């Protein structure tokens, strides 16, 4: 089967930046508290639905997006505090399991509130099926919004982490919770805000991708696992690593779908994830495992 490489590039980059954003969310949380958060995938899937509901209530799109992002941030802080943190009593895998519980709750609530059928979401500009020829492939107009929005969000977050007080607090906690505490930083606040920021990030991503994959479809697990793969391969502890990992997985996935089939691409991707974990769990750019509560 001949592979349409320019199309692989188009699809791969479009999805890749989404994986990168979700992986960035995992990275933020993992580095600040050692927790793995399974719920981000579901938060991605529900983002579009929330905005749709707000818009159908008359709220203009941009405002709806802002409200959804803030609501997600608040929700994230809430479930970190009440579901994830208390589960630490069971050891470091407790929050992982609790996050699976949160994911299930979000997913089921989504079906109860909005029904099981995914909903169409209008692209930010242009008609739904409009696409543009670029570098030999066809790119949906939305792709450019997705890539642009993702790039801006990621850049904003990176600048924020590097140059603000919060960013320094986050990095300090990552290196040494005790040291951070001694400097007056409360690691549990950093942890909670990490989940908050990650939720916001993932919500932006979810709204951006909704025109392409439909809002509220059952793709939370697919996105979530691929983003995990991105974080593993790039290195959970490396900011650049997770971003590059996301792009890599996006391109790999697109290529596998084109070269094999959608179903086989899943099989291969999961196998790749398992292999990466076995062979090099800290990823290409990560440092030796960080683990803390």
């Amino acid at each position, binding site marked *: 089967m001949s592979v349409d490489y320019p199309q692989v590039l188009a699809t791969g980059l479009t999805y890749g930046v989404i994986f990168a954003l979700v992986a960035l969310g995992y990275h933020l949380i993992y580095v600040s508290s050692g927790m*793995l958060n399974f719920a981000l995938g579901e938060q991605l899937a529900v983002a579009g639905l929330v905005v749709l509901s707000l818009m159908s209530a008359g709220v203009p799109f941009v405002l709806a997006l802002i409200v959804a992002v803030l609501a997600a941030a608040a929700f994230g802080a809430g479930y970190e505090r*009440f*579901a994830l943190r*208390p*589960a630490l*009593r*069971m*050891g*470091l*895998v*407790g929050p*992982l*399991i*609790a996050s*699976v*519980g*949160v*994911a*299930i*709750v979000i*997913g*089921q*609530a989504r*079906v*109860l509130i909005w029904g099981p059928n995914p909903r169409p979401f209008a692209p930010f500009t242009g008609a739904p099926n409009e696409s543009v020829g670029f570098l030999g492939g066809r790119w949906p107009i939305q792709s450019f919004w997705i890539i642009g929005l993702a790039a801006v969000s990621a850049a904003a977050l990176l600048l924020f982490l590097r140059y603000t007080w919060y960013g320094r607090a986050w990095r300090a906690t990552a290196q040494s919770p005790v040291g951070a505490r001694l400097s007056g930083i409360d690691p549990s606040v950093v942890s909670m805000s990490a989940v908050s920021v990650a939720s916001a990030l993932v919500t932006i991503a979810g709204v951006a991708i909704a025109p392409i994959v439909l809002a509220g479809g059952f793709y939370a*697990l697919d996105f979530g*696992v691929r983003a*995990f793969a991105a974080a*593993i391969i790039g290195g959970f502890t490396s900011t650049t690593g997770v971003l590059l990992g996301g792009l890599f997985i996006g391109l790999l996935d697109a290529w596998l779908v084109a070269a094999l*089939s959608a*179903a*086989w691409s*899943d*099989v291969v991707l*999961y*196998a790749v*994830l*398992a292999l990466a*974990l*076995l062979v090099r*769990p800290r990823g290409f750019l990560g440092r030796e495992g960080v*683990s803390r509560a």
Partner: protein
Amino acid sequence: MSRFLPKIPPWVSPVVIGLLVLLFAFTQDSFYRLQLGTLSGIYAVAAIGLTLLFGAAGQISLGQAGLLGIAAFGTAYLTVDRGLGPVLSGVVSIAAATVVGLLLGWSALRITGHYLALVTLAFGLCFTELGRTVLPEGWYGVPPLAIGSLDLGDPQRFFVVVWVFVVLTLVASSLLVRSRFGRSIAALRDDPVAASACGVNLARTKVAVFGIASALAGVSGWLFAMYQGSVTETSFSFTLSFNLLIMVVIGGLGSPTGAVAGAVFLVLAPELGRSYEQYRLLSYGLILILVLALLPGGLASIGRLIAKPLRRRRAGVEETA
């Protein structure tokens, strides 16, 4: 995660459960209820395996459904396509699941904690996807259990057979946990470095406990194939792995009796609120979160609380004697 080796004699809960099972078997006419009871018993076997693996030994697996699936597919293939008897098919399929489980155990030697969770998750998902691509129609017509001319496929009989397996597994794991091996897996869970310094061969112990858990998952898969009669990969998705985890967490990590209680609860709970079927999975998620946050010891810790004054009274009698 602190869990004491139980001081209650290992025969207590199997006997109690055995009696309850017999009671249930001979007073239930409802086919539907018998089926539910059978299904909870089937999952209970896998849940006991997972509680030994995760609760007692501290090795997390989010992919047990894949192991059940391997045994179920194997059983279906061997009985339907190859005409092998159910028992022989079972032995082969369970062995296959165990071998795969040992491989997972080998991978646990290199990675622990989160990463192990992800690897087992990836394995489970891989299995489901493979099943969907390569064998999407699955098999129909898996014959019910029969040993020679003895037909055990009748719902009431199969129910008893399944629960005989549960009780045997319960007895064996209760004995296991209270033995030298049981101490070594607790040591492995609590402090692998210190365990090694005490002479525990970490590699062998980890692989062994994965082997045990996957053999039990295999038994569960074999029983499931015969129970359901048809096998497709949809029965062995991540949801099942997650449900097994909930059963184990609710029941109390490391407690085989708790695992059985968790399995029964999870399968029967929907019956308590039939009209709330749509809320079922949602409430499982909420229950999981609540249990993790408020009662990490699960149902088993409640059991221990009840047993404590009984034990103290016995001890008191012995002291004054």
